């Protein structure tokens, strides 16, 4: 047997690859830093605040930003900065949970549809077609109205809206991947259909879904804000960015700080998450890869 000369090469696992990608583009790096900052602020910040989440202080109603209250106070004298940070906990958790759950469900259904084909595929895809005929926000509103308000109901409402798009995309990826020879090879070595789907197909089609999921976090935060704005979703007195926006709606001329800061918070969170998604997507482009 000929002796082969191996090179010392670093291993590159799924996560190692993923993290490496994050570090590669400027966009992703900025996004990560920003997101980490926001997460820390929202989860650690409230511990440092002298104010309470719902600390009503009628002497400070509508107070403008000052040394005491950096972002001012709302209609009930509650410190906006503190409420913003607490609210961030809800918004971020909502975004992450929804994105994670909906991606998981989409990828599973998409894989089943793409791999099994035939009648199964047709049934699933036509169902998804009907599903996606309804605009996401409208669907979320309908479901919220049925399930009522609150954190979990909102998660369910927002998850359901996201599934159809994810299924279509995953199925497309599966169709492309399914014809590759390693899938045929897996069949030839007696892998069960389930094993082929989970061990071979799924890990290789999931990457674009991760990007979409990351971007969806931003969309979820906005939709949750929208739901709260119209009185569904998370209910007062729980601080939530959208609800805070709604509260300040009437006073936009007199006390713009009530709308400004929640608005900026939403914008920054969505920006951070989109930058990360952008960066990941750029590194998936094979031409930009080395």
């Amino acid at each position, binding site marked *: *047997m000929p002796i082969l*000369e*191996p090179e010392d090469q670093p291993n590159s696992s*799924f996560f190692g690859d993923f993290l490496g990608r994050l570090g590669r583009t400027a966009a992703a790096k900025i996004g990560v830093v920003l997101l980490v900052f926001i997460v820390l602020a929202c989860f650690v910040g409230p511990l440092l605040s002298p104010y309470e989440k719902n600390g009503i202080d009628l002497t400070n109603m509508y107070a403008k930003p000052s040394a005491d209250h950096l972002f001012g106070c709302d209609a009930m004298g509650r410190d906006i900065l503190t409420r913003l940070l607490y609210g961030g906990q809800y918004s971020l958790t909502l975004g992450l949970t929804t994105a994670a759950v909906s991606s998981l469900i989409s990828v599973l259904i998409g894989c089943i549809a793409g791999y099994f084909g035939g009648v199964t595929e047709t049934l699933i895809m036509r169902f998804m077609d009907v599903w996606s005929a309804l605009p996401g926000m409208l669907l979320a509103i309908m479901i919220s109205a049925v399930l009522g308000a609150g954190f979990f109901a909102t998660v369910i409402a927002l998850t359901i809206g996201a599934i159809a798009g994810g299924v279509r995309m995953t199925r497309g990826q599966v169709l492309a991947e399914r014809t590759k020879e390693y899938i045929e090879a*897996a069949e*030839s070595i*007696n*892998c069960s259909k389930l*094993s082929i789907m989970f061990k071979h197909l799924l890990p290789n089609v999931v990457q674009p879904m991760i990007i979409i999921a990351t971007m969806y976090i931003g969309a979820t935060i906005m939709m949750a804000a929208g739901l709260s704005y119209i009185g569904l979703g998370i209910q007062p007195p729980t601080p939530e960015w959208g609800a805070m926006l709604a509260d300040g709606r009437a006073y936009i001329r007199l006390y713009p700080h009530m709308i400004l800061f929640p608005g900026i918070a939403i914008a920054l969170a969505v920006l951070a998450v989109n930058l990360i998604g952008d960066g990941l997507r750029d590194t998936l482009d094979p031409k930009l890869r080395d």
Partner: protein
Amino acid sequence: MPPLMEVRDLSKYFKVPAGVLHAVDRVSFTIEKGKTLGVVGESGCGKSTLGRTMIRLQEVTDGLILLNGEDITHVSGRKLREVREKVQIVFQDPYSSLNPRLLIEETIQEPLRNSCDYSRSQLKERASALMDLVGIDMRLRQSYPHELDGGRRQRVGIARALALNPEFIVCDEPVSSLDVSIQAQVLNLLMDLQDQMGVAYLFVTHDLSVVRHISNAICVMYLGETVEMCPSKELFSTSMHPYTKALLSAIPSIDIDEPMRPIPLKGELTSPINPKPGCRFFPRCPYAKGGCRQPLRLEEVSEKHFVACHRVREIN
């Protein structure tokens, strides 16, 4: 003693919008234990489909496949799993035939995992032994496919195919994607393994020089049908079918004093969809005559030399 592998009138058709695509049409041959049958032809001749159908990766449309005399054409379930352990395949493209997310060690262990309950250490040991057998260096065993070059990846594919100690392996253009110097390494490996383990091959390729080296007998295919089949050496010394002659004449020789004189073929490859009866090479054959449109069968023109041509005796 029945031959290891036998196919009788094996056909594989696909339904396409334009009609029925005859990918493989009434192919018959036998392969003895430890021997190699080379299958050559150009694109669209059906050689890859033939290989995949023989090991049941594609369903058979018509005809029989016999493994050690036993009919495996339509077996399923447990029986199919048993059959799969005896017949394996090595794929052409070293870049897409390995799961990019699995370590090569895991890829090789997978057939073992599927067949028996081996312990972790047993799996590791078996995989190690296989990698030794195909010549993959110790240091590379915990690599991902993208970290290896084509030649090494192909060795991994071969190790995977050998994991269950098969009796028969379909080699689907295993060296076509490799560089010339690596081709020779992998071909030698395949031949060494055949000697050591007594495994038989169906060696599918478009490269006539490679097939001569590794095969005992060669089958030439055109548009899904066998046009000529004979022992390897005879194909090159006394080919009889006009297509085989044209194919051989078209190979650019490295003999610089012998300019090549390719036999010109009229027109282009005809469509395998709803083919007309009779010889499929008729539209392009330099010896074509009216009578060639009659239905055609492979005849034994001389000992072990089969040709499907109405005018074979006149031409030679």
